[in-house]
């Protein structure tokens, strides 16, 4: 299974042709919610070009933690409700997290003459995102096992 789409999974492969409006509508609606949450947090915690982008850092790590947990839950339930992955995984969490702002903020820190901040932000996001997705998956998996006993 994949948070966006995995064409090796029959249900993923068929969903667009079967329910194009519902699937694309769920993704768009979720994407709007996620993006507005991200924009709100970034507006509340702005940063100077040479400073560490804490808002986007927190957004991306939180999104990775939640996608790990979400995918563990959906996997345990045979994929879950048909629109759960499109709405929550592709839409809300895909729209909440952002890679473009991450890449551009690193570049902007370099342009602003802060290579240390750029490198720290680059590395902290990579390590933090991978730890977060692993932790989300592991925690949800443990709770699911406990719940099924």
């Amino acid at each position, binding site marked *: 299974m994949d948070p966006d789409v995995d064409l090796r999974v029959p249900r993923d492969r068929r969903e667009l042709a079967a329910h194009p409006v519902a699937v694309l509508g769920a993704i768009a609606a979720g994407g*709007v919610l996620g*993006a507005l949450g991200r924009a709100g947090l970034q507006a509340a915690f702005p940063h100077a070009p040479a400073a560490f982008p804490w808002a986007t850092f927190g957004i991306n790590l939180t999104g990775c933690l939640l996608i790990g947990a979400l*995918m563990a839950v959906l996997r345990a339930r045979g994929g879950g409700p048909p629109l759960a992955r499109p709405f929550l995984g592709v839409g809300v969490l895909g*729209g909440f997290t*952002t890679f*473009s702002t991450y890449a551009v903020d690193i570049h902007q820190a370099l342009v602003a003459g802060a290579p240390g901040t750029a490198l720290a932000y680059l590395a902290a996001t990579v390590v933090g995102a*991978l730890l977060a997705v692993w932790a989300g998956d592991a925690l949800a998996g443990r709770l699911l096992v406990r719940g099924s006993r």
Partner: protein
Amino acid sequence: MTVLLVALGAAVGAPLRYLTDRAVQARFGAAFPWGTLTVNMAGSLVLGAVVGLPAGPAVTALVGTGFCGALTTWSTLSYETLRLAREGGRLPALLNVLGSVAAGLAAATAGYALARALG
């Protein structure tokens, strides 16, 4: 107004990530997440250009925060890296995440430089 522009951009960006991923997987298979790499590079290139121009607040909200923000993703990138680590071992997983960061940074730099040169 800003809220509306961010929403509009995201309503296009998120479905476009999904459709791009489908198209890329149909062409190149689903073993390696080329689709996510594609959208992350494209979004970084465009956002780099938006910042390089520099675009005004309305275009930044619509195209930058809304469209590029929703087109690109860290959540899918991290999950696909975790999946690669479990299915294919550490090397493909490391190549995916570090290659994405290098390619995204190169794309952002190229977009910024292009916009500066043309703008």
